[in-house]
Each structure stands twice: as structure tokens, then as C-alpha cells.
């Protein structure tokens, strides 16, 4: 694997990782919102 290919592959991996991170972050916020929201509605 030459340097260019390596760099392209690394960039692709990092771009995919950013997407994964956004998805997980949204899930975490959704769980936070769900628990507070259900407590508010339950009250």
C-alpha cells in the first residue's frame, strides 16, 4: 500500500468514524431526553 492509498483509506475510515460518532451521540441524547421526557409526561 503506497502512501497515497494509505492516506485515502485512512481518510475514508475517519469519515466513517465521524458518522458513527454522530449516530452514537444522537442515541445518547435521545436516551437522556427519553428519561426526562417520560418523567415529565408521567408527572
Amino acid at each position, binding site marked *: *500500500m503506497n502512501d497515497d492509498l*494509505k492516506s485515502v483509506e*485512512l481518510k475514508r*475510515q*475517519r469519515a*466513517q*468514524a*465521524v458518522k*458513527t*460518532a454522530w449516530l*452514537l*451521540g444522537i*442515541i*445518547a*441524547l435521545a*436516551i*437522556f431526553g427519553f*428519561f*426526562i421526557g417520560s*418523567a415529565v409526561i*408521567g*408527572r
Partner: protein
Amino acid sequence: MSSEISHTDINAVQDDHEHGDHKPAGFLDRWLFTTNHKDIGTLYLIFSLTMFMIGGAMAMVIRAELFMPGLQLVEPDFFNQMITMHALIMVFGAVMPAWVGFANWLIPMMIGAPDMALPRMNNWSFWILPFAFAMLLSTLFMDSGGPAAGWTLYPPLVLQSGTNFAFVVFAIHMMGVSSIMGSINIIATILNMRAPGMTLLRMPMFVWTWLITAFLLIAVMPVLAGAVTMLLTDHFFSTNFFNAAGGGDPVMFQHIFWFFGHPEVYILILPAFGVVSEILPTFSRKPLFGYASMVYATATIAFLSFIVWGHHMFTVGMPLQGELFFMYATMLISVPTGVKVFNWVSTMWQGSMTFETPMLFAIGFVVLFTIGGLSGLMLAITAADFQYHDTYFVVAHFHYVLVPGSIFALMAATYYWLPKFTGNMYSEKWGKIHFWLSTIFVNVLFFPQHYLGLAGMPRRIPDYSPQFADFNMISSIGGFAFGATQFIFVAIILHCVFRSKVKATAKVWDNPIGLEWTLESPPAYHSFSTPPVVTQDMVRQ
């Protein structure tokens, strides 16, 4: 994992050492602004060791006060602050950051990645922590003192806290943000940055256990954040989520808290399972017995951890069907846990075992963690729990799981990988002295607490009836000795890092398994900038 280390891409390793050692020159650039996974791992480990000593000092205050009946040293309110802060610091400041530190160091090297997937967020995840704990510790110097309602923060007691409570809640929020960002980074790294050929079922067990732990963290830390946010608004903004006088339900907090709290226990212990699963094969000179079943058992434990929270609340009162459900679900966890213990013992069975310090701590973990697991089974029996609940039996149980469990595994991991991290060997003689003193005194410290609990001594009290005096004195002596022994641990680490003249080889041990052992000791600042190609003949599973 690699049994034949030499057939990794040697050129890549060479390349690392020719071009990979460009560390930032300045101190601040190196440590404050670092995005390097090894530096951030080191920062986490230094931070957690510091917190371990601070939390340990608080434990010494607790054991000193309980040395004999009567109030000797501290006021009851300060005693309550000590038990609360000891727990918060040990759970969130010592054990969790230590595992994140090892994850930072090891996961990229184990999967053949050049770094964590999101290096800047990695820096941020760490540097939130010192501020969070500075804020938490600062409450001890406030007029209202530190938090004193226990780490479970149960209302209505916790709602009687003073102004410190806002600081405590904000500190917990910051710890949560740090943990969630760290977990996101770990999952993103493992799922996206593996070297070619490193399939999921070829990953080392430490990577697997951390992947599952990271999912647990993302699932439950927002729950804790939600619970403490509602406490905050109840305290300062006149809401009534948990205030019975306003129509709220304090028991609802307990449900929400333990929905977080029980998986939290597994967050502290699953990476320990991974470490032991790495160490036992190396020093038994055999592959890990039942790799796939270890992965599935870990995932099963993680799943079950979400449906057992009610066993912390049997005495609160719940329908009989609820009690039965939580009892049986809790007992079910012993099945995958038993699979793990069986596999560890089978790994050692007929192996060519040697007993270097990491192996001693790993074996100590298997034996003593199992004692903690068995007392957990006793607590799972609803009818029996009415006797054990809120007694020192519970204290003995979870300390057996966390101290000779998680913390012994952390010590095993330190001795196992410190030569890899530093390039220097630690003193094997002093490592063994540390192990034997720790093992003896941790049992002197915690085993008598089973008897105290069975005899009815309640937890979280600064004074007690005279009939509990003897076992408390034995426990305190064990506590002081265990605490003093940990200075040996710190001295061994400092000696290894700064003074040791014995250089570590790349493999360090006799044919260890894993990509990290293909790198030199210490590894270059930037390793695996050219990813290794992992093939089937390089892995054992």
C-alpha cells in the same frame, strides 16, 4: 491474535521507528494539546492513580473512625461526606478512567490502527475530568461540606443538601460527558479503524470487552444525567419529580438510578474480564479456552445487566411477580459469568504455567472475584436480601467485586503492559511482594465484613454497637495495611518509569499474543501508520 509475532509487517514496524517518533517539543503541546492516543492514555492513568490515592485516603478516614466503637476522629456528617466522596471518586475517578487509559493505549495497537478515530475529541474527553473532580472535591471546602447522602444520591435525603449540590450535579454531568465521548471514540475506533484482516471475531478479548462496555456506557450515562438533572430541578427550581410532598415519587429515583447503577457495575468489571483473558493464556502458554463463548458470555452479561436493577430495591416493596423476576434474572447472570470462570480455569488447565506478577494478580482476580460473585448470588435471593440489605454484607460483597476484582485486574494490566509502555522492566521481586501483601490484607480488610453484615451491622454509620468491635478492628487493620501496601505499587511504577536499568524486549513475555507485542518497547510515538495485514495464521481464534 498473533502467535507468531515476527510475521507481522516488519517493514511497518521499522517505518514507525524511522518516521514515527515526532513528539511535540513543548510541555503544553505534548500534554495539554495532545491528540496522541498513547499520551492521552498516560494522562488517564496518571489521573486515575492520583484519584485512587485520594479515594484511598478517604477510605482510611472511614476505617479509622470504625476502628473501635464510639465517635473518635470525625463528626458523623463528615463521615457521611467521606463515604459518599470515597465511592464517587473510586468509581468515576479511579476505576473508570483507568480502564479508559488502558483502552487508549491498547485498542489502537491491538487492532492495528494508527490512533483513535477522533483524536481531538479524545483530548477533550480527558481534560474535562480534572475540572470535574476539582469541582467535586472543592465542595469539601464549602460551608455546606461535600455531598453526604451516599453515592446513590437518594431523595429525599439528598434534597436536603446545601449549595454544594449544584457543584456535585455539574461534576457528575461533566464526568458523564467525558465517559460518553470516550465511549463514542472507542466504538468508532473499533468499528472503523481495524487493520485489514482484523475481523471482529479475531479481536483480542480486551477489545471485545471494551466494545461492549462502551455500548453500556452510552446507554446508561444519559440515564444518570437525566436522574441528577431532575434532582437538580427539584432542589433549586421547585419541581416535584421526587418530592412526595409535591406529589412526586422518591422511589422513581431509585428505579432510574439503578437502571444506570447496575450496568455501571459491569462497566467497571467487563474490561477486567478482558485483561484476565489476555494474561492467563500468555502465562499458561495456551490459547484462551472458548474464545467465542467468552465474547457471547460478555454480551449476555451486558444484556442481562439492564433487567436486574430491581434487586437493589427488594426491601422498598414491589409486587411479588417483580421480586421473582428480578431474583431469577439476577441469578441468570451467574450462567455467563460461570462460563467465563470455567474458561479461565480451563485455559490454565495443563498449561505450562509460570507465576510472574501479572499472572499472580490475574489468578487472584479469578479466585477472589468469584467470592464476590457468590455473595452476589446470596444477595439475589429476595427473601434472604431482607436480612442482608443495607448491612456490611453488601459492603463486603461489592468490595470483593471491585477491589480484588476490578482493581486487581488493573494492577495485573499495569504489570503486564507497563514494560511495553515504558520500555523498562519493573522489579519482579517487589511486584510479587506487592501482590502477596495486597492479597493477604484485602482479605483481612473485607472478609470480616461478611460476618459483621450477617450479625446485623448496618452500613454507612460512624458508630456501632460494641458486639461488632472485634471484626471492625480486624477490618481496619487490614485496611490500613492494604492502603500502605499501595505505596509499594506507586514506588514500583515510578522506579520502572524513571529508574529501571533493565530494558524490555518487544515481546516482553514468553510468546505473548497480540499485535501490540509486534511493536518495540516502548512503541514509537506514532505506531501502525502503515497498517499490518492480519491473516488467519496470525491469530489463534
